C-alpha cells in the first residue's frame, strides 16, 4: 500500500493527492492488466513529481509502473498499443499544457480507433494530467484545456471536485472501456475531504446533484464546485436555496440531470475555471436554453476565467482567474437580489 494510502487509512479524511494515489493503488491491486507509464513516476525517480504514484513501482513492480523519457507521443502511443492488446494503461502527462504534444495520438487514434475499426478494437486508456491556475506557474503550466477533448467524439473527460469523487472517478476511468482524460487540480491537491470506500467505483456519464436547492442551479465541475458549496451555505443564511450540479463527467455530458435541476429552479449559473469563451460552459448554456426556453426565470449566466494567457504575476493571475465572488454575484443577479 502506498504511503499516501497508508496515512489515509488513519484519518477519516484524505487529500486529493491521497485519493489519486489510493485509486491507482487499488486499481492495480484489483486488476493485473492495469499498468502505468509516465515521466518520473517510478520510485527510483521519487514516485512522480507530485508523489501520486509513490510506492506503486515498488509494490507492483517496475514492469507495471514505468518511468518514461520525455516523449509524450511515445507515452500515449504506448498506452494505446498496450490497450489494444488487452491492458488498461494509465498514462501520466505531467501537466496539461504538455498534452499539446501527443494530441495526434489522443485525438486521431485513441478517440477514433473503436469507431474506425467498426468496434473490433477499443482503447481503454486513462490519461491522468494536472493543471490549474493560481500557483504562479504562468502561461505554459496552468491551462485548463478540457473543452478540446469534450469536443472529440470517443473521448471521455472527467474532473473531480472532492477527494472521494477523485477516487471513485479515477477508478471509473481506469475500468471504463474508452479513452478517458482525468484532470487533477494542482491548486487544491492538499485539500481534504471524507475518505471514499475502498474499491467503490463511480461510473462515468452521470452528473451528481451535490446540494439540493430550489431557487437557482449552479452547474459546473472541478474547483469552482468547491467554491459553490461555500457560497450556497452563505446564501442559505439569507434564505436563498442553491442547488449544485457537479457534472463529474464533463463529456459525454449528463444533460438530463442538468435539465431536471434547472427545470426545477428556473435559474442557472454555469461555472468552470477555464477561460469563458468557447469553453465547456457554453455547451451547458446552449443545451439549457434550447430545452428550457420559456421556463427560465433569468438568462443562464457563466462564470469562468478571462480570455487571456495565464499571467505570471500574482496580481494579474488573480485577475485572470474566476472568483468565488463572481459566482455569488451571478447567483444574485439571476435572482435579482
Amino acid at each position, binding site marked *: 500500500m502506498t504511503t499516501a494510502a497508508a496515512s489515509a487509512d488513519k484519518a477519516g479524511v484524505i487529500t486529493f493527492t491521497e485519493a489519486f494515489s489510493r485509486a491507482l493503488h487499488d486499481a492495480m491491486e484489483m486488476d493485473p492488466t492495469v499498468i502505468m507509464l509516465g515521466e518520473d513516476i517510478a520510485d527510483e525517480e521519487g514516485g512522480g513529481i507530485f508523489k501520486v504514484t509513490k510506492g506503486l513501482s515498488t509494490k507492483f513492480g517496475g514492469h507495471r509502473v514505468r518511468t518514461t523519457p520525455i516523449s509524450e507521443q511515445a507515452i500515449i502511443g504506448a498506452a494505446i498499443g498496450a490497450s489494444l492488446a488487452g491492458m488498461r494503461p494509465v498514462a501520466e502527462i505531467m501537466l496539461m499544457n504538455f498534452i499539446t504534444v501527443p494530441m495526434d495520438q489522443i485525438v486521431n487514434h485513441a478517440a477514433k480507433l473503436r469507431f474506425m475499426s467498426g*468496434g473490433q*478494437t477499443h482503447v481503454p486508456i486513462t490519461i491522468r494530467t494536472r493543471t490549474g491556475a493560481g500557483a504562479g506557474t504562468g502561461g505554459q503550466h496552468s491551462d485548463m484545456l478540457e473543452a478540446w477533448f469534450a469536443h472529440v467524439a470517443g473521448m471521455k473527460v472527467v474532473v473531480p471536485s472532492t477527494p472521494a469523487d477523485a477516487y471513485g472517478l479515477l477508478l471509473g476511468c481506469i475500468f471504463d472501456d474508452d479513452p478517458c482524460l482525468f484532470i487533477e487540480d494542482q491548486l487544491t491537491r492538499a485539500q481534504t475531504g471524507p475518505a471514499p470506500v475502498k474499491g467503490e467505483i463511480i461510473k462515468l456519464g452521470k452528473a451528481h446533484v451535490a446540494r439540493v436547492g430550489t431557487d437557482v442551479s449552479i452547474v459546473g465541475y472541478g474547483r469552482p464546485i468547491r467554491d459553490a458549496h461555500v457560497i450556497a451555505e452563505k446564501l442559505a443564511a439569507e434564505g436563498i436555496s442553491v442547488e449544485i450540479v457537479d457534472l463529474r463527467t464533463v463529456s459525454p455530458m449528463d444533460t438530463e440531470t442538468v435539465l431536471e435541476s434547472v427545470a426545477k429552479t428556473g435559474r442557472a449559473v454555469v461555472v468552470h475555471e477555464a477561460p469563458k469563451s468557447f469553453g465547456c460552459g457554453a455547451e451547458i448554456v446552449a443545451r439549457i436554453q434550447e430545452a428550457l426556453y420559456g421556463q427560465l426565470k433569468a438568462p443562464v449566466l457563466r462564470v469562468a476565467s478571462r480570455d487571456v494567457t495565464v499571467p505570471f504575476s500574482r496580481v494579474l493571475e488573480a485577475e485572470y482567474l474566476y472568483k468565488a465572488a463572481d459566482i455569488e454575484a451571478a447567483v444574485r443577479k439571476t435572482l435579482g437580489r
Partner: protein
Amino acid sequence: MTNSSGASRDGRPAGAGGASATAGSRSSAAFTPQALLEVWRKARLINLVDEKFRTLLRSGRLAAVYYSPRGQEIVAAAMGVHLQPTDYLVTTYRGIHDQLAKGIPLKPLFAEYYAKATGACKGKGGPMHITHPQTGVMVTTGIVGSGLPIANGLAWASQLKKDGRVTLVTFGDGASNIGAFHEALNLASLWKLPVVFLCQNNLYGESSKYEKCTAVDHIGERAASYRMPGVTVDGNDAEAMWRASAEAVERARAGEGPTLIEAKTFRFMGHYFGDPGAYIPKEEYDAHLAKDPMPRTRAAVLASGIATEAELAQYDAEVNAQIEEALQFAADSPFPDVGEIDIDVYGATA
C-alpha cells in the same frame, strides 16, 4: 498448392497462407528455394490484388482513394513469411501489401474498400484504417509516423504477457523525419521491446524527393541514435529482404529488442491512384522499372527449379479466383445501416 479454397482455416488466403503457419520455426533456416517460393506467393497475391484494384479504379467500378504498393511487394512478402498470425502489424494508408502479407482474408478487406457492412470495419474505417485482429492487423493509420508509438505499446503488452508475439510496424521514408519516429525508436530500445521497425524507403513522400526531406544517406543509420541494430537492404531483393527480416523477427522474439530495417524500394504508381507523378524524372523512373522486383523474383523462382511456369500460372489462377470471389462478395454486400453512425462511438460501459 493443394488448398485451393478461398481461405485456409485461419482465414488467410491459402496461397499466401502456407508459409506463415510455420514460419517462426524456419525463419533461422537458410533461404531455400521453398522460402523463395513462399515469398513469391505472398508477393504475387499482393501484385494481383493491386492490379485488379487499379483496373477497377480506372473503370470507375471502385471509388476510393488508393495508395498502390506496386513495386513494394517483395518488401512486405519477405517480411510476412516470418510472421505468425498472432503477431501484430501496424501499417499505414499504403498498407494493403503489408495487410495481405500478414494474412488478412480478401473478403473483409475488399468489402471495406467497397464501404460495405461486411467490410472488416463495417465500412466505417475505410481503406486507410483497415483493422483485422484475427490476423493481427491491429492498426492502419492515415497519419504519418503515428503507428510507431502504438506499435511499442502492443510490444510492451507482449513483453508483459510473455506471449512471444512480435510487432511489426511499417512506414515510409518520409515518416522517418517526424517526431514520433524519434520518440518511438528511443523508447523501444530502452525497453528492449519486441518490435520490428520496417521503413519502406520508396524514395518519395507524396511528391517530395527523399534527398530534399531526409538529411541522412541511409535511414538505417538512424538506428545508431538509439543504440539499436539498424540495417539497410535492397527491398527488391527477395533473399536480402528475407534474411534481414528473419534476423529482426528472431531478435524480437528472443527478447533481444527492436531492429530498424530500411528497405530501399520504389513506388511505380505514384503517391495515390491517379497521381500523374510529373515530379519523377523519366530516366529515374525507367531505372527503377529495370529493377522491378516482380519479374526479377519470378525469374529466380523458376531458376531455382522449385516451381514450373505451369505451377506459377496455376497459382495465379487460384489467386485470381479468390480475388474474383471476394470482389463478388464485396459487390453483393449491403452498405452499412444508417444506424451504425451511433454505434462504436463508445463501448457498452458508456
